[in-house]
């Protein structure tokens, strides 16, 4: 079981309110990702759930029990830290066994759990090494192993992949997702990388300045962003947001259109512009086009075969059925 509920939880450091009162429910077995720009309070929120920070107000409920005043170790949650926080003077075996040793389990039982976790995480050959002798990905797995053996109600991940190189990050992303499918345990995952959020989450919580901007499945957020912040944050490359006369024509303060929903044509179209930088990814090509509809250059996705010179004249046509409209406050209009 691992249902976590936040009721009017808030956090202030001195007079600075980092998280205004918020409500959030995380269902048992869900993979929830907290995503937002740096300093948005997502890590603080995770630490509040873990109990490493005291809440200023409100209640944290785990499996129906009020855990607000419960010590971190007693909440039945396991955390994987950004720096992995492995104990450098202990072997991998002792690192993984540490929570069991603290719980007072006997040696045979510890060994059995460690062997099992090592098996799952492909660490069996490294059990007698020190963390300093392992690569980044292996250290990450040891940290996860230390969390698994506790059989927690929920796993908390605090930007666990940010210290890994790009290739390893993609691999670990898959491993963590697969682990979730296998264990079916609640996981809460903090990241600033919206690609990680989109690929791993059952449910994404978008945060800005401690406020929840939107909660929903990755596709919900992608297709129906609740406001301009979510619209700009989710999706890579970013959604084009157009203000001014171009938007007023559609009766909105701001309109948004994703790069893949603009057709680019050399001969005719609704908007006219000149091509700036083109980014060739092989499968797709992204053109940055300065056009008459907006002050900012628009990003347009085209097929990988399309090639246009810098400065070429092009025409753009947005597909109106995919247009997002936002009002003066930046909220979605239907």
């Amino acid at each position, binding site marked *: 079981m691992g249902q976590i509920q936040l009721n009017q939880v808030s956090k202030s450091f001195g007079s600075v309110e980092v998280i205004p009162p918020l409500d959030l429910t995380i269902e048992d077995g869900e993979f929830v990702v907290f995503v937002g720009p740096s300093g948005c309070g997502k890590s603080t929120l995770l630490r509040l759930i*873990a109990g*490493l920070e005291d809440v200023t107000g409100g209640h944290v409920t785990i499996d129906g029990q009020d855990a607000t005043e419960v010590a*971190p*170790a007693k909440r039945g*949650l*396991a*955390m994987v*830290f*950004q*720096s992995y*926080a*492995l*104990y*450098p*003077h202990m072997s991998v075996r002792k690192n993984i066994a*540490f*929570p069991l040793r*603290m*719980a007072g389990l006997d040696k045979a039982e510890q060994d059995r759990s460690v062997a099992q976790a090592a098996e799952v995480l492909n660490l069996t050959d490294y059990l007698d090494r020190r963390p*300093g002798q392992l690569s980044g990905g292996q250290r990450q797995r040891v940290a996860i192993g*230390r969390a698994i053996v*506790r059989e927690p109600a929920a796993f908390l991940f605090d930007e666990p992949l940010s210290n890994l190189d790009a290739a390893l990050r993609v691999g670990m992303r898959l491993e963590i997702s697969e682990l979730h499918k296998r264990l079916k345990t609640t996981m809460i995952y903090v990241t600033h990388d919206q690609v990680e959020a989109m690929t791993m989450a059952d449910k994404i919580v978008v945060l800005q300045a401690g406020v929840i901007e939107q909660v929903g499945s990755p596709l919900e957020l992608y297709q129906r962003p609740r406001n301009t912040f979510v619209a700009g944050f989710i999706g890579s490359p970013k959604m084009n947001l157009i203000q001014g006369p171009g938007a007023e024509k559609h009766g909105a303060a701001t309109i948004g259109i994703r790069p893949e929903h603009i057709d680019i044509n050399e001969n005719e179209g609704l908007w006219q512009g000149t091509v700036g930088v083109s980014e060739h990814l092989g499968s797709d090509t992204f053109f940055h086009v300065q056009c008459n509809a907006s002050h900012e250059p628009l990003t347009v996705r085209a097929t990988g075969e399309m090639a246009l010179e810098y400065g070429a004249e092009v025409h753009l046509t947005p597909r109106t059925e995919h247009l997002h409209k936002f009002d003066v406050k930046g909220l979605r209009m239907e």
Partner: protein
Amino acid sequence: MATQHSRSAARLMMAPAVVLLLGWMLVPLTMTLYFSFKKYLPMRGDSLANGLDWVGFANYTRFLTSSSFWPSVYATLVIVGGVLVITVILGIFLALLLDQPMWGQGIVRILVIAPFFVMPTVSGLVWKNMFMDPVNGFFAHVWRSVGAQPIEWLSQASLPSLILIVSWQWLPFATLILLTAFQSLDQEQLEAAEMDGARWPQRFVFIVLPHLSRAITVVLLIQTIFLLSIFAEIFVTTQGAFGTKTLTYLIFQRVLESQNVGLGSAGGVYAIILANIVAIFLMRIVGKNLDA
């Protein structure tokens, strides 16, 4: 850039420093060894100019068989050991306290470090006259205020008193080194241990102490080097009386009070051997902490 030419030029330029350092070490060592095999009593008319008599190992046997020798080795080891234990244990506690955020942290830290800047002679005299004096000392007043008979610290409890004085001087050093070690401890490791269910004493034993082990090693090694040769504190307090005669002090007495340079030199060679034995033991016990 490390061409043949630049390497030989570098050697040439380093040579004066290397020669100077070698001379600095070798000349006194050779002279000590040389004198230790000679009869050299300046007050009885022996002098380098007249030539010194070769006496073989007579100085060595005499120094070793003297009734003061083994007590001096004992006193040396007790003082060094006592100071090491006190400074490391108290140093850990003080460093732990100073690591906590508090008002006036900067000033408190400077105050804690202050004893290290007091010259050994001065601190020895201050302790002897202002604290341990059985008539006017601070401790005497404290004892009398509760109706107790004041302790004559430097005669009745001479070794503990000396250990107290020297520990007071070296505590700041240990505290400082250990404090920097505390500050380099990754807080996430402590949080991880907390999540893993370790209580504070367990976090201290399993996470903090292992992290401090290297700093403790450094403190032990450096302090041992300096503590084996403490002199001023003994000279200004007990003058080697009441069982506080260390090996260093015994050598001083042989050379300057008895005016027997040969005998003192033989003692000096024993001191080198003792220092090496202690060093080897220390390296064996704690040296592996300095690896990796």
